[in-house]
């Protein structure tokens, strides 16, 4: 078991309640995805708006949010480990700041996967039960994976970076990472309402842009953040 897996395991052990909490967010996902089954009233809905497609894409950022929530304990661990000298010890063992960032990022993605995959199963199951087309379900799943993983990665790396850059050692600015991640997801939440037909390409572009940003931040982390920023 490597550093990444060990860290994900620690995150799950310490933050099980976060994972459990993320499942609560799946309730609106179930409602949105099974809109046909529930036979929700449709009066007042513009005739050109396909509610099935609209709700399917609306559930994408919500499932992404469950991933972000369940991955949060890993980012909290980062600050804990910084303050108790664990990061300093990891550096002395031969790791550098990029290795450490990658380790915590990988652990976040692993832990976020739990909620993300359960969310995908819920999306697919309710969609199938509602008679949603397979192509729409496939697009929904693909988009959820892209947006979910890229947002988890963005939040994880921003939380680590904000806690490394700040002067206060207590992780005061760390939650700003979650705020940025939530902002991105809320953008994805608005797109299906503003331009339902463009929801798929626009959300895909958002996911790709976030992924590129994450990769760039990861590559630059060695130069942007010095090792001394990992000291308690």
């Amino acid at each position, binding site marked *: *078991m*490597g*550093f990444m897996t*060990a860290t994900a395991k*620690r995150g799950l*052990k*310490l933050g099980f309640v976060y994972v459990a909490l993320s499942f609560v967010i799946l309730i609106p996902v179930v409602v949105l995805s099974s809109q046909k089954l529930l036979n929700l009233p449709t009066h007042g809905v513009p005739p050109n708006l396909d509610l099935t497609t609209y709700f399917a894409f609306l559930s994408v950022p919500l499932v992404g949010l469950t991933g972000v929530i369940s991955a949060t304990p890993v980012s909290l661990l980062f600050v804990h*480990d910084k303050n*108790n*000298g*664990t990061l*300093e*010890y*990891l*550096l*002395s*063992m*031969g*790791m*550098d700041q990029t290795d450490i960032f990658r380790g915590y990022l990988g652990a976040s993605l692993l832990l976020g996967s739990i909620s993300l995959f359960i969310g995908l199963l819920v999306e697919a199951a309710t969609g199938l039960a509602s008679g949603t087309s397979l192509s729409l379900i496939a697009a929904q799943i693909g988009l959820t994976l892209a947006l979910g993983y890229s947002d988890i990665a963005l939040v994880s790396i921003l939380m680590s970076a904000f806690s490394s850059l700040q002067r206060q050692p207590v992780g005061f600015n760390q939650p700003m990472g979650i705020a940025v991640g939530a902002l991105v997801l809320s953008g994805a939440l608005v797109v299906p309402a503003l331009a339902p037909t463009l929801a798929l390409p626009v959300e895909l572009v958002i996911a790709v842009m976030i992924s590129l940003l994450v990769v760039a931040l990861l590559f630059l982390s060695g130069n942007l953040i*010095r*090792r*001394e920023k990992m*000291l*308690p």
Partner: protein
Amino acid sequence: MVLGSEPLSELTQLSPLQILGVDAGYGEKTVLHDVTFTVSEPSIYVVLGPNGAGKTTLLRTIAGILRPSKGSVNFGGTNVYNSKEARRRLSYLSHLNALPEEMTVREALEFYASIEGGDVDRALETLDLQKLEGRKMSTLSQGQKKRVSVGKVFLRERDLYLLDEPTSNLDPAMARDVRDLLLRLSRSKIVLYSSHNLYEAKEIGKYLVLIKDGTLQLFDRMENIRPKEYRVGIRATGDLSSLKDVEMSNGYYVFHVAGQEEVGAIVKRLVQGGVTVTEVKELDNPLEDFFTR
């Protein structure tokens, strides 16, 4: 109890550790100024200095955690900051325990072993931690945590040990055992050891690295460190107060001498005069001078 009683494997040749004209610090603040020294002999090098002198900064820089803003630290000819391989050959014990609080003792050691390899049972045995291995870190006393923290350094062998106050928080018996362990270790490895305990430093250190205001004040063999004034206390049967230049203090007859060499002559003279000497004690630690100057 004898800690780590199995012999540590001998290195055929030790790589030199070179600290060359190093300036280092945190951000804009430079703590170390032009520090230069080289060590290659397996031994204990005690790093001494007042609070804020730069001892921890020195150890962090040697460990490759801090990048020197000037100069370099090389181990075996390789720049430590730039080489992961060089850093894997050293071990750094910070003054913080660096242990995940939510884990048991065994889990914490396994966590580090999963990253860098090593033998958890060996580390448990070396620091006599078997009885604590199932206990959560958060339930241990500070001294017990320190033992676990020292234990992680012994997961596997290294060539260079950088230890920042390894005996702080330990009870006297455990501190003695750790000192014995380090003494055995220093037969084949380089051990840099920072401490505030001057008696401990004098007892186990073969070399002194004195840091003050971020500069290297002295690097010398411990035996060459002479006090400004050498006082020896003697307990004896009979009244010695009539002797010239002798004073009484805390039950000892105190003699002011030039150095250790004179002590034997004084004792001999007393014995020849029919006095039974029951105790001879060095009253001053020459290292104290560095903190009182």
